[in-house]
């Protein structure tokens, strides 16, 4: 076998090219490589397969580099090899989700990396690692040739040729798509095993993967796809249903298939040997066993595949695609330059994106500052004001564009819920179907990310506490299969996400009783239903058995509320006993910028979000009336709307108390409408929303502050919050 890299250490596939293909062409030093590796791992999340797979390959290259650098002692090389190996084993377990405490596993990997770093910088072997056998083995391998050869045996499974790369990339993109859709179809099938369309789709997915994998000589993927396909073939012929054990097997092969494609991706982008996963063969055997009728044996082991894995790379018997590596190495730089750029997208670090959006926000402020400085006197300088108008248009467009950069579909979160619902309902022994709609709705990326946690809690709660067990459901005259619906849609300038279940509903008497016991509510308080339901968000009522033994819905609900409120959203609950509950999350479209109407009350300026304004008018005396001498009403075109005196609610001194001398702004939030009494309207402005600072926290009726053109901070009116403040005042006064 050839020794492709040992004589040309600098031509080795460069890890930096994984992330920064054009920046650095040559690997400068090993320590740099370690740094990069640690940088990518620090930010890694245990669920990010791409990064993990990437790190997996990098560890291997690292060991290789150390070996080739020629400067290290034998003992050192052996030690590095060992450490890299153990790190890779841990990573592999992570990728295949075989460990429960992923965070701890990840930190173990980090620890190994830190040891490696120490080893490379100081040249000293960390005590823990100098186990006699390593050192002895390393020393006894005094002939470098033997060493390299053995390493080659381990790692040189397959390196891809240039002409294959294009095909390979296509295959990677395609097969990840297929696997994704296979997972979806599988979830559909589990709900409805007779769905032939989903089954054919699933079959097609694996069939295609099998075909192309065979063509590209990717044996593991091919083998896996082949047995899975056979499994589906039986299902198509009606010989078995893809539920229970068979379903778990398919799910498992989808997971492993994803891991395999991940390895392939790394191998393709780094031109490194393709890693071979040790889990594939047991699974293949298991499925074969299952197909052969050993259902009992397969069933018991289907979900507990061997956790121990030792072999990471084995020599593939047919290295026919292995090409002259020296040529490959020589062509490396050219090849990388000509690397096809996928579908024309660029990956950008999120902090850069966030900074861009921040800067655009500041630009918007600066723009309105200049516009304000120019003022109405701009008639004198028509040219300047025209150019300023032009600038404003560009700024506006730039802003829209920059906001859209961060918009992503909620689909990614929703899809996760599908899997979660499946697993949870299994665990709870309930039949639940999760229906998704509107998953193409776009939301700010930060919002979508922050939404994952609360949604998870809520879906889990709905299944856990909302949906009854099948026998209870049947007794209550419902279908035995519970239904949870997750729906996203636009409504009035905000995004609504609804979680509807057809379970037993919330037990408001018990919630209220518990809240009174916990001292959250006064014993004699009379609360509307919606307020009672909101008590489940109270931190003191967070455990299910405290509220009630049957319909708790407390677990993690305070977390849900906090997370949603952090996003300037709100959660509303409605529930009918025996029929089900609806949780509605309302979120603003974007986090950063809103269009606002600047109003003045006395000396103070406030900003009312444009999207909650209907109109503004100056009421005539005959439009005004009072109820019980207290609640003031304005009659606007036949509708009686309550008059909210902003100066009363905010405790400031107005210019005039007389509504007929000032203005009212009609605001709405869903079906609630009201008139806000303000002194003056100052004009419309785009403002960047800022938090009021940690020291103040949440203020009802205020959603944040914004720096106006004059440099002062103005408060942004939170219309729904204001409604609450107003109704509380009426109740408590």
């Amino acid at each position: 076998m050839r020794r492709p890299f040992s004589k040309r250490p600098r031509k080795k596939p460069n890890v930096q090219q994984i992330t920064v293909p054009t920046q650095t062409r040559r690997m400068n030093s090993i320590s740099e490589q370690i740094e990069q590796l640690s940088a990518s791992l620090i930010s890694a999340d245990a669920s990010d397969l791409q990064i993990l797979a990437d790190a997996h390959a990098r560890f291997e290259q690292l060991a290789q580099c150390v070996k080739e650098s020629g400067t290290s002692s034998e003992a050192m090389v052996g030690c590095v090899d060992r450490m890299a190996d153990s790190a890779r084993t841990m990573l592999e377990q992570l990728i295949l989700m075989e460990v429960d405490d992923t965070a701890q596993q990840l930190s173990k990997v980090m620890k190994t990396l830190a040891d490696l770093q120490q080893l490379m910088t100081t040249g000293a072997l960390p005590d823990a690692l100098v186990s006699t056998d390593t050192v002895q083995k390393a020393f006894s391998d005094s002939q470098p040739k033997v060493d390299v050869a053995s390493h080659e045996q381990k790692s040189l499974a397959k390196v891809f040729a240039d002409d294959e790369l294009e095909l390979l990339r296509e295959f990677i993109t395609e097969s990840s798509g297929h696997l994704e859709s296979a997972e979806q179809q599988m979830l559909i099938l589990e709900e409805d095993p007779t769905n032939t369309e989903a089954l054919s789709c699933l079959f097609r997915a694996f069939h295609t993967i099998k075909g192309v994998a065979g063509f590209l000589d990717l044996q593991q993927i091919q083998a896996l796809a082949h047995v899975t396909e056979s499994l589906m073939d039986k299902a198509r012929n009606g010989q078995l249903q893809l539920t229970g054990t068979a379903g778990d097997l398919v799910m498992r092969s989808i997971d492993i298939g994803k891991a395999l494609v991940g390895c392939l991706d790394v191998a393709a982008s780094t031109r490194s040997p393709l890693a071979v996963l040790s889990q594939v063969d047991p699974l293949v055997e298991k499925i074969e066993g299952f197909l052969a009728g050993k259902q009992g044996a397969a069933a018991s082991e289907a979900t507990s595949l061997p956790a121990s894995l030792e072999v990471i790379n084995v020599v593939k018997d047919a290295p026919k695609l292995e090409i002259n590596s020296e040529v490959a190495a020589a062509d490396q730089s050219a090849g990388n330059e000509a690397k096809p750029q996928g579908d024309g997208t660029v990956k950008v670090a999120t902090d850069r994106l966030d900074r861009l959006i921040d800067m655009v926000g500041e630009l918007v402020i600066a723009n309105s500052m200049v516009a304000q400085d120019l003022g109405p006197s701009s008639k004198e300088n028509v040219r300047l004001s025209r150019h300023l108008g032009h600038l404003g248009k560009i700024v506006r467009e730039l802003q829209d564009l920059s906001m859209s950069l961060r918009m992503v579909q909620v689909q990614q979160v929703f899809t996760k819920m599908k899997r979660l619902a499946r697993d949870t309902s299994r665990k709870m022994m309930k039949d639940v179907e999760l229906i998704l709609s509107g998953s193409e709705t776009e939301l700010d990326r930060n919002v979508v990310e922050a939404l994952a946690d609360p949604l998870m809690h809520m879906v889990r709660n709905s299944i856990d506490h909302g949906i009854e067990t099948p026998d209870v459901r049947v007794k209550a005259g419902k279908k035995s299969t519970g239904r949870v619906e997750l729906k996203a849609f636009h409504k009035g300038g905000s995004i609504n996400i609804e979680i509807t279940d057809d379970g037993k509903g919330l037990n408001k008497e018990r919630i209220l009783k518990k809240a009174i016991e916990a001292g959250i509510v006064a014993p004699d308080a009379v609360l509307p239903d919606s307020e009672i339901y909101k008590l489940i968000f109270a931190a003191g009522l967070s455990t299910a058995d405290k509220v009630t033994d049957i319909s708790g819905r407390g677990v993690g609900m305070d977390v849900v509320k906090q997370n949603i409120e952090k996003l300037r959203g709100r959660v509303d609950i409605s529930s009918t006993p025996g029929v089900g509950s609806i949780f509605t999350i309302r979120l603003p479209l974007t986090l950063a910028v809103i269009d606002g109407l600047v109003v003045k009350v006395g000396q103070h300026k406030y900003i009312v979000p444009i999207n909650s304004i209907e109109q503004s008018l100056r009421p005539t005396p005959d439009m005004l009336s009072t109820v019980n001498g207290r609640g003031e009403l304005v009659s606007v075109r036949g509708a009686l709307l309550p008059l909210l005196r902003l100066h009363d609610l905010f405790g400031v001194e107005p210019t005039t108390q007389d509504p007929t001398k000032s203005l009212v702004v009609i605001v709405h939030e869903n079906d609630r409408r009201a008139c806000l009494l303000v002194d003056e309207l100052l004009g419309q402005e785009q403002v960047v929303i800022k938090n009021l600072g940690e020291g103040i926290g949440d203020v009802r009726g205020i959603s944040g502050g914004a720096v106006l053109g004059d440099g002062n901070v103005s408060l942004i009116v939170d219309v729904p919050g204001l409604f609450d403040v107003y109704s509380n005042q009426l109740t408590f006064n």
Partner: protein
Amino acid sequence: MNTTTRTTRGGKYLTFALGKEGYGLEILKVREIIGIMDITVVPRVPSHVKGVINLRGQVISVIDLRSKFAMPEVDRTEETCIIVVETSCTNGRKRSTGLIVDKVSEVLSITDENIEDAPGFGSSVDTQFILGMGKIGAAVKILLNISKVLGADDEVPAALAA
């Protein structure tokens, strides 16, 4: 107070005045000192929270130390200042807060032996805000534990918002 806090108390303190009383803040907690400016009033917050200001694009809350310590408020003068302090919240984030004080004096190095524990005042003075009493010649500076002073705010707005 245990010995560990005792050994770390010596150091540089920014001293300021509230009426006739001299106070000190650990210099590492101070971010900057700015002149008094227009403060945007925020409704429905405790009375010692005067509102928010724009500190170069960042909105920070401003509290009046006089009313925080239940001292009578006075008119603002040329010497009235806002000291911006940076403290860590329980969630690990940094938080900047403006403190309105009558006058900023100077930065003093106070050695550990010149710092004494706050004497008990009975129930009339809450000493948990006090890090210690610094002696500078005949004068006494009340060294504040600013995290405690600000930390006590947290519960109040939460109660209002509920």
